[in-house]
C-alpha cells in the first residue's frame, strides 16, 4: 500500500482529535466539576505508635472460650471455611502450647500444666516484620501505628511472606474463597483466588473508633492498646504480670503478649 506524507499527517491529526474527545465529553456530561472525595483519618479513629495485644491465657480453659472470638473475627472479615486442611484460611485460631511456643517453650514438664488448653494465635504485628522484608511488591507493609497491613489487590501471590513468617500467621487462597463464606459482610472486601491474607488487628474498626472484634468478643480476656504509652492497659498488664511472646529469639519483636 502506498502511503503519502499527507495521509500519515491526516491520520495523526485524526488520532489526536480522537484522544482529545473523551475528556471534553466527560466535562460536558458532568456539568459542574464535582468536589473530590476527601480521604483522611476519621475524627473518632483510635491511634497509637505501636498497637499491641495482651492475651490472658489463664482465662482460656477450653475451645468454648476461643470459639466466639474466632467466629467474630472470621465472620466480619469474610474468612472462608474449608474442611480440607491445605485450603485452610486462618486469621485467628488456637493451637497447643508446644506449637505456639515451639523452640522457646519451657519444656516437656511445663507443658503438662497447659495440657489441653487452647493458646490463641494470630499475626504478631511484629515490630521488625520479616514478611515485610520479603514482599517484592510492598503489598504488605508496616504502618505508622505498628500494624502490618496487607493489600489483597496488589499481592501477586508469590507466598514469600509466608515463607518468611515464623508464626504461620499468613494464609494463601489456593481456591476462590467466596463459596466458602457463609454470610458475606458487605462492609469488608472478599478476596480472590491466589492472594495471601492475615489478621490486621482490625485496622478498619480502629479507624472508626472501635476495638478489634476479638477483643470486643473476649469480655476482658484480651487487652488491646498502645505499647508506647506507659499508662495504657497493655503496659499495665505487662508490668504486673509475667508475660511471654512467641519466638522472641528470632528478633521479630512480636506485639502480642501472653500472660501464662
Amino acid at each position, binding site marked *: 500500500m502506498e502511503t503519502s506524507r499527507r495521509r500519515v499527517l491526516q491520520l495523526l491529526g485524526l488520532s489526536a482529535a480522537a484522544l482529545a474527545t473523551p475528556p471534553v465529553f466527560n466535562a460536558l456530561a458532568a456539568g459542574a466539576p464535582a468536589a473530590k472525595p476527601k480521604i483522611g483519618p476519621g475524627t473518632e479513629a483510635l491511634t497509637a505508635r505501636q498497637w499491641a495485644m495482651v492475651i490472658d491465657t489463664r482465662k482460656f480453659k477450653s475451645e468454648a472460650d476461643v470459639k466466639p472470638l474466632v467466629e467474630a473475627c472470621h465472620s466480619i472479615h469474610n474468612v472462608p471455611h474449608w474442611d480440607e*486442611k*491445605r485450603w*485452610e484460611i486462618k486469621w485467628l485460631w488456637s*493451637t497447643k502450647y*508446644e*506449637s*505456639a511456643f*515451639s*523452640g522457646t517453650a519451657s519444656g516437656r514438664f511445663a507443658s503438662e500444666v497447659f495440657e489441653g488448653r487452647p493458646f490463641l494465635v494470630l499475626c504478631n504485628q511484629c515490630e521488625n516484620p*520479616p514478611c*515485610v*522484608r*520479603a*514482599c*517484592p*511488591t*510492598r*503489598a504488605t507493609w508496616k504502618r505508622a501505628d505498628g500494624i502490618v497491613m496487607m493489600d489483597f489487590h*496488589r*499481592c*501477586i*501471590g*508469590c*507466598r*514469600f511472606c*509466608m*515463607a*518468611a*513468617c*515464623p*508464626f*504461620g500467621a499468613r*494464609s*494463601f*487462597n*489456593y481456591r476462590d474463597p467466596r463459596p466458602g463464606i457463609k454470610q458475606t459482610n458487605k462492609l469488608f472486601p472478599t478476596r*480472590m*483466588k*491466589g*492472594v*495471601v491474607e492475615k489478621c490486621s488487628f482490625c485496622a478498619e474498626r480502629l479507624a472508626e473508633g472501635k476495638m478489634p472484634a476479638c477483643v470486643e468478643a473476649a469480655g476482658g480476656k484480651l487487652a488491646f492498646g498502645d505499647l508506647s504509652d506507659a499508662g495504657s492497659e497493655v503496659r499495665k498488664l505487662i508490668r504486673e504480670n509475667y508475660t511471654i511472646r512467641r*519466638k522472641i529469639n*528470632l*528478633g*521479630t519483636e512480636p506485639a502480642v503478649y501472653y500472660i501464662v
Partner: protein
Amino acid sequence: MLELAINIANFTFLVGVAAGGVMVVLPYYLHDYKAYGKVTILGEFLAIASVIMCITFILVDLGQPMRVLNVLLYPTPNSVLFWDTVVLNGYLFLNLIIGWNVLEAERNGVHYQSWLKPLIYLSIPWAISIHTVTAYLYCGLPGRGFWLTAILAPRFLSSAFASGPALLILLCLIIRRVTNFDPGWKQIQSLAVTVAYAICINVFFLLCEVFVVFYSQIPEHMDHLTYLFVGLHGHGAYVPWMWTSMALMALGIILLVNPATRKNELTLIAGCIAVFFGCWIDKGMGMISGGFVPNPMHEVNEYIPTLLEGLITIGVYALGFLVLTILFKIAVSVKEEVRA
C-alpha cells in the same frame, strides 16, 4: 498451610543449570582455554533455555500471575525476590546478546565486536550472582532452620557446577552422534573433570551441614535433615528419594573421579546422568520440601505434589527443551556451515 514446592524446587535447580554454563565461559574467556571455543555457545544457549524455564516456573507458581509486573511497578530493594527478578532477567539478556553476537561473528568469519568483551566479563560474576541471590531467597528467613545456614549459597553453586556441566556433556554427546559438528572429546573430558570436582565439593558441603546440625543437636536445625533421611513423627515420603540421591551422587563420584571410567563414553554417560538426577533430588525436592517440613511451629504437614502440578512441571520442561532444541539447532548449523 504453605505449599511452595515443586515449581520452586525446579526453579532453584534450573537456576543452577543456568549458572553452570559459566564453567565453559570462564576458562575460555578468562584463562584463554582455546579448546572451549567450540562449546561456549552451547553453554550460553543452555543458560538461556534454563533461565526461561526458571522464569516460567516462577510465573506458574504465582497466585496472581497477571499482576507480576507489580514487581517492576513497585520496586522493593529490601526484597530478595525483587533482586532475583533483576539478576535472572539480566543473565537472560546477557547470554542472548553475547551468544547471538559471538555466533554471528563466527559465521561471518570475523572476530566478535570489541564492545562485547566487557559484557562477557560481566556475565561471569553475574552467573555466580544468580545462584547466590537464589540461595538468599531462602537462607535469610528466620524460623526456617534448614536454610538458615551461610553455606547455602556455596552449596547451591557447587551443585550447579556439577549438574549444569553434566547436562552439557550429555548434550555434547548427543550432538556428536546426530550432527556433523563435533564439540570434541577433549572438551567433554575437561568438562567431566569440572563435574567430578564440583560433585565432590557438593557432597563435602552437605557433610559439613550434617556435622553442624547433628553435633549441635539444635532441634530446629536437626529435624529437617532427620525428616528427609529417616522420617519424623511417622512421616517420611522423601526418605527413599534422599537415599537414592545420595547413592546417585556417590555413583557419580566413583565414575567421574576414576580416570578409567571417566574416559569411557558409556560410564561417563552413566556418571553424568547420576550426578544430574542426584543433584535434582537433593537440591530440588529435598532442599525445598525439607525446608518447609517441619514448619516453624514444629508440625509435620507433608507435601506431596498433585497430578496437576506434575503435568504443569512437564509442560514447563517441554517449553524449555523446545527453546533449547531451536537454539542448539541454530548453533550447530552455523558450526557445520563454518567448517564446510
